[in-house]
């Protein structure tokens, strides 16, 4: 079971949040940083940044960035850590007006775990820049440990563009001898990056009905030639899907969807790419994998379904927006949205699921529901590029991996507002303890309250008398509960039923955390 932590508590329906990313500090897995778009009205947005220092139990939101002169907004947040403990945010700045002209790739730095952020550093300017992705080499054994990589589409040049920093963000370059924006591929859409433990890193993207990839084994100085990992996919396109405002929608949905090739490097030469595919007449997650650094692909040429048989979604559900990440132990997770009626005749809602592979992507043998309730994508949904015929829930969401397991960061409307939620797999106990001891006066009733219990924990209270006697009950209790955004205060009201002083112990059992 996954804990569902509401990260943001925004009462304004104008502050819809979506399209999020999450990264876990590789040196301190209790420090987690998230980023999302935050709309300020149905068709304008900027970023919000979130940080947790207790493993996702509680969160703070960084002060609003504001926008630079001449900017109308910033989009497509993506995050990466360097080896100096800085976390980097890559954003796409764009200008004002109906056409929202693209400006370029802006890098922001936080040196305090995501609490505060620097002014942007515009590392590349092109009116064709779009859909960037960032990743850090966070593997101490890698010869390129600490490098930060960024890739994006330069639509004007028709290339997949690349930049890197090898000095914790002091300078940004491209491939060897080139500045930021050097071309590493062609005809790209929405590149993603993943770094293996030995420093090999991969860039994957969608090119029509192909999933292309390149790799670098020298820290981004050079890349292999682009080759197809998978060919003949059926991306989400119109037709057959509707696109009333020019953006593709799923049947029964009004939010925009697309096919992005998510990737994750596993142990050794393992690499997994996953995408939303419509070949079955319903959107499903398909994937391809290689165990030899991309030299060969086991399920070529068109990939295979992520989940089959009893693990597959029902025929009336659409799976989309896959996100892929790996844990340090090599397990690979693929999170995705499932859209459809959750009961017969019910409204079409979205659940978040996580599928896991323990064999480097050869198969995904488990499927877990992350959301403890489904959410309605029609609630508080802003517009896509100002077009009221198509709404927006983000083109992707966040999945991270660390020694603590998978971290999921998604948009959720269960409160009536598009908010950010965080999920992590719960661990089952029990763990026992005594929170207090006291001697109660005769016939007293006392409210013993104790605060700062993480809201996701399942806690039982079992107070006990420590004054042996005979002849009847000595005490009774009832539990009342109070909630702050992230924590619970328990009020354990104990009544001494006797006419003598009574020693009591406030015992608890934590069933799950």
């Amino acid at each position: 079971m996954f804990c569902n932590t509401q990260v943001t508590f925004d009462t304004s329906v104008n502050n819809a949040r979506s399209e999020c990313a999450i990264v876990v500090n590789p040196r301190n897995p209790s420090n987690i940083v998230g980023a999302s778009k935050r709309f300020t009205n149905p068709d304008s947005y900027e970023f919000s940044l979130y940080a947790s220092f207790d493993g996702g139990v509680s969160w703070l939101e960084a002060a609003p960035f504001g926008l630079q002169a001449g900017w109308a907004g910033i989009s497509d947040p993506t995050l990466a850590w360097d080896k100096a403990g800085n976390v980097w945010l890559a954003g796409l700045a764009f200008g004002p007006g109906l056409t929202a002209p693209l400006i370029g790739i802006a890098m922001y730095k936080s040196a305090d775990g995501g609490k505060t952020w620097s002014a942007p550093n515009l590392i590349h300017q092109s009116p064709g820049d779009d859909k960037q992705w960032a990743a850090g080499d966070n593997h101490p054994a890698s010869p390129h440990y600490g490098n930060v990589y960024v890739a994006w589409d330069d639509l004007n040049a028709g290339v997949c563009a690349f930049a890197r920093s090898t000095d914790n963000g002091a300078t940004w370059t491209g491939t060897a001898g080139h500045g930021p924006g050097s071309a590493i591929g062609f005809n790209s859409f929405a590149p993603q990056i993943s770094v293996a433990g030995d420093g090999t890193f991969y860039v994957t993207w969608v090119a029509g009905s192909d999933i292309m990839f390149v790799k670098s084994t020298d820290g981004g100085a050079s890349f292999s030639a682009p080759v197809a990992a998978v060919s003949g996919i059926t991306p989400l396109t119109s037709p057959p899907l509707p696109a009333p405002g020019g953006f593709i929608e799923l049947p029964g949905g009004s939010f925009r969807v697309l096919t992005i090739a998510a990737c994750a490097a596993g142990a050794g030469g393992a690499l997994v790419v996953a995408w939303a595919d419509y070949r079955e007449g319903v959107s499903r997650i398909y994937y391809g994998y290689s165990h030899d650094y991309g030299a060969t692909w086991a399920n070529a040429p068109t990939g295979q379904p992520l989940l089959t048989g009893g693990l597959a979604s029902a025929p009336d559900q659409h799976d989309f927006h896959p996100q892929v990440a790996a844990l340090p132990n090599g397990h690979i997770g693929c999170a995705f949205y499932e859209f459809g009626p959750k009961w017969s005749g019910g409204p079409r809602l979205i659940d978040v699921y996580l599928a896991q592979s323990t064999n480097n992507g050869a198969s995904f043998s488990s499927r877990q529901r992350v959301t403890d309730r489904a959410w309605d994508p029609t609630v508080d949904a802003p517009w896509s590029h100002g077009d009221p015929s198509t709404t927006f829930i983000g083109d992707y969401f966040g999945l991270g991996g660390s020694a603590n397991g998978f971290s999921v960061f998604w948009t959720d409307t269960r409160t009536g507002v598009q908010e950010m939620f965080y999920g992590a797999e719960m661990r089952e106990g029990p763990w026992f303890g005594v929170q207090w001891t006291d001697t109660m006066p005769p016939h007293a009733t006392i409210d013993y309250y104790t605060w700062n219990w993480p809201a996701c924990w399942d806690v039982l209270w079992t107070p006990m008398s420590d004054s042996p006697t005979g002849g009847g009950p000595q005490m009774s209790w009832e539990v009342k509960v109070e909630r702050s955004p992230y924590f619970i205060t328990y009020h354990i009201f104990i009544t001494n039923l006797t006419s003598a002083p009574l020693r009591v112990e406030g015992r608890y059992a934590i069933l799950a955390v």
Partner: protein
Amino acid sequence: MEIGTQIVDTMPPHAVIDYYTWGWDSSWDVVWMVVPTTPTTGGPQVQWSVAVELSSSGVTYHVTITNLTAHSVGVEGRYAILNL
């Protein structure tokens, strides 16, 4: 042990609601915990009690939750099956 959330609702001010859930195996040892999902300050928001009913089709748990406040409160009714 198996854990989960069975009840999700928003309770009106001062409401007392019997959330009953049926079909639980009588051999299971089930405990119930209720937490509010609406943040507040100033005091307890909810309390609960559990009553049990056994029929040929299993156990029905009546989790009666009281909203102690003058405001609407979101609640989650969580369970743990201790012997699974």
